[in-house]
């Protein structure tokens, strides 16, 4: 962010301030206020529900009211002090209540323009605009809350056009600055597909897990009520079951039915979430940019320059295969906040393998897709996966036998499982570097491909454990920008040493050199001719 806020000289500063002429939407203070209140919403609700109200709470009410009043004043003030405007190559934003802040955002540094509309925004006909640049750790470079929809679209267009122009000015050849490109619709997901997506992805499970996590945090009041409720329902259920004189088979059937109902319930929740999140999903592709629109209640529209894609992960689980679908996620350079995320990360939530092939072929360099020239890992890679498990199982068995007697020997069955798993894993794992794309795939029932263009790599690391050295193996770690901590890292494990060395050498040759790349000139764009 420091790059975007280089302090210009004094004269320029006034020119810049003069350039910032436009204001936010007149109702923007309302949305700022709501956003601020929302930050306090959860503690407030907990207080209202959980806290027992007593005499003398009037003071508390008064304080709350005063705080709300202050927030409202701050919101209005924010509206009056916030202005933005345009220069040739940059966006200027003036803001700040007491401490005045002048921010300059060069267009070519903008990673992503996102238009966010929740239900209220849509009722009023406004949108929140977020500009993101690289490495912001999830914090937007600029967050404009809120603009009239036409204004937001105009800003979006200007920023993107400005970015194109800035890039065209840099490119000395200048041949490919063909102006605007008519975006092509790559993918639209009708509700039918979203149902499939929900069934496959099982997002509901995440919500259930989050719910449990919340309940454990929520304190006694909630948990006590909840556990009382569950207990009474359980007691009634048992009483009913006793009245029916059920046998053990019936009990088992009931339990199974209950389990089934839970599974179905979670899947239904997943479907609902998928629809909520991806309703009317559209992926448009221009020459340089991808545009994603989605959402049932909150509409999100975001842009992703193709060259900003850092790495891909393609997955095809067993369920995916039953439905004949695949999913693609991408890493981009700007790190997203976890809850804001997924705006572009789920670039292709669901598509047929053929459709996916087409899209990936267009995104990757020519000859990069389909991935080909797969090569196997070290012949004893399975042994590397198996050995730690074998040791763990043996140790566990020894403990069991020591405490429980010879019955503990049954634990050895796990060794067979670990062996099978290791063999299958090694058999279905492979790597390739062809057409400038480096990839690793693994998995038998659930298959995953993780790949990136070699020129997008930022660092290489080769590691060897003592075990690896004895067997002549090495693991290659490839570091890319913006890799999500939730995704598995891009690495090619347990290669034969000679392969690892050769691959590292080839990757080194493909990684950018100082003189070879077309650099963005911030020096020029940070102090534009105003």
């Amino acid at each position, binding site marked *: 962010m420091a*790059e975007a806020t280089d302090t210009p000289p004094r004269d320029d500063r006034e020119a810049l301030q003069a350039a910032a002429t436009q204001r936010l939407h007149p109702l923007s203070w309302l949305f700022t206020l709501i956003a601020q209140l929302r930050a306090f919403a959860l503690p407030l609700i907990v207080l209202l529900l959980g806290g027992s109200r007593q005499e003398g709470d009037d003071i508390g009410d008064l304080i709350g009211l005063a705080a709300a009043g202050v927030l409202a004043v701050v919101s209005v003030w924010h509206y009056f002090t916030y202005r933005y405007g345009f220069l040739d190559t940059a966006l200027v934003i003036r803001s700040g209540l007491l401490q005045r802040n002048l921010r300059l955002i060069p267009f*070519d*540094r903008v*990673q992503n323009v996102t238009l966010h509309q929740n239900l209220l925004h849509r009722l009023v006909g406004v949108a929140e605009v977020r500009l993101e640049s*690289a*490495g912001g750790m999830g914090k937007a470079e600029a967050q404009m809350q809120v603009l009239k929809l036409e204004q937001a679209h105009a800003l979006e267009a200007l920023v993107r056009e400005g970015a194109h122009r800035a890039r065209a000015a840099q490119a000395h050849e200048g041949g490919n600055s063909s102006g605007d490109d008519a975006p092509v619709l790559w993918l639209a997901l009708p509700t039918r597909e979203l149902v499939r997506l929900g069934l496959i992805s099982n997002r509901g499970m995440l919500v259930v897990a989050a719910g449990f996590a919340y309940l454990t945090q929520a304190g006694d009041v909630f948990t006590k009520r909840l556990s009382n409720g569950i207990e009474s329902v359980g007691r009634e259920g048992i009483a009913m079951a006793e009245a029916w004189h059920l046998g053990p088979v019936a009990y088992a059937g009931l339990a199974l039915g209950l389990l089934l109902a839970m599974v179905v319930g979670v899947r239904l929740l997943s479907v609902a979430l998928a629809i909520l999140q991806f309703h009317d999903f559209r992926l448009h592709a221009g020459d340089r940019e991808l545009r994603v629109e989605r959402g049932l209640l909150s509409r999100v529209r975001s842009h992703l320059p193709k*060259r*900003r894609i*850092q790495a891909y992960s393609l997955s095809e689980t067993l369920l995916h295969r039953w439905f004949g679908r695949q999913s693609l996620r991408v890493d*981009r*350079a700007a790190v997203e906040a976890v809850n804001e995320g997924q705006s572009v990360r789920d670039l292709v939530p669901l598509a047929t393998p053929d459709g996916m092939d087409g899209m990936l072929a267009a995104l990757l360099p020519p000859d990069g897709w389909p991935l080909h020239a797969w090569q196997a890992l070290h012949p004893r890679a399975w042994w590397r996966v198996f050995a730690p498990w074998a040791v763990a199982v043996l140790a566990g068995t020894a403990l069991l036998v020591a405490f429980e007697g010879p019955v503990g020997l049954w634990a050895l069955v796990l060794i067979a499982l670990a062996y099978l798993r290791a063999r299958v894993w090694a058999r279905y794992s492979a790597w390739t570097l062809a057409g400038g794309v480096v990839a690793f795939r693994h998995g038998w029932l659930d298959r995953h491909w993780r790949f990136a263009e070699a*020129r*997008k790599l*930022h*660092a*290489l*690391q*080769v*590691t*060897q*454990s*003592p075990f690896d*050295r004895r067997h002549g193996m*090495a693991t290659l*770690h490839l*570091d*890319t*920008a*913006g*890799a999500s901590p939730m995704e598995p*890292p891009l690495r090619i494990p347990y290669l034969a*040493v000679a392969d*690892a*060395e050769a691959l*590292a*050498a080839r990757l*080194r040759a493909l*990684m*950018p*050199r*100082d003189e*070879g*790349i*077309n*650099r*963005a*000139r*911030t*020096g020029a764009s940070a102090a534009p001719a105003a």
Partner: protein
Amino acid sequence: MTDSLMDWPGGTPWQPLPEAAWRCFRLSSALAGAVFGLAFGTIPAVVLAFADGPAWWHLGMALGVLAACLALAHWRATLAFRYTRWCLDDDGLRVRRGRFWRSEVLVPRARVQHLDIERGPIERRYGLATLVVHTAGTRLSAVRQPGFDEDSANRLRDALVPHQREHDDATHG
């Protein structure tokens, strides 16, 4: 790599750390070892001595654990010094580390975002510096290597971030 992983840690062009780094590693490692030794040996021994009345084995425990920790620290420092090599070539900076668990990192010159030279009190005493190379990557976003003498640290900095160099877009190319 131009040179095999079999030849570890490698001769020329791989450069070792200066002799002073060994002393520096030993001192900082010994401090850490002493802290561990006190925490897991001496303090429990003192507590036990107060609880059950002093006995000879309390003294043995206090000194034994401390000595073991210091010995481990010395061994670790020696290994860290002996098995660290670095090399700067056309591609960028490479650093090799580790005796048992080995790792070799390559940061291409074009990928260096910025670079820190840190000097702690112990390092200052020996005229050494820690070089931290930052990239826009994720897991290897900061490659950190202590024990450079200040001259090579400065030379490395100048070599990796030339004055004329324009800013790179974090995500370019």
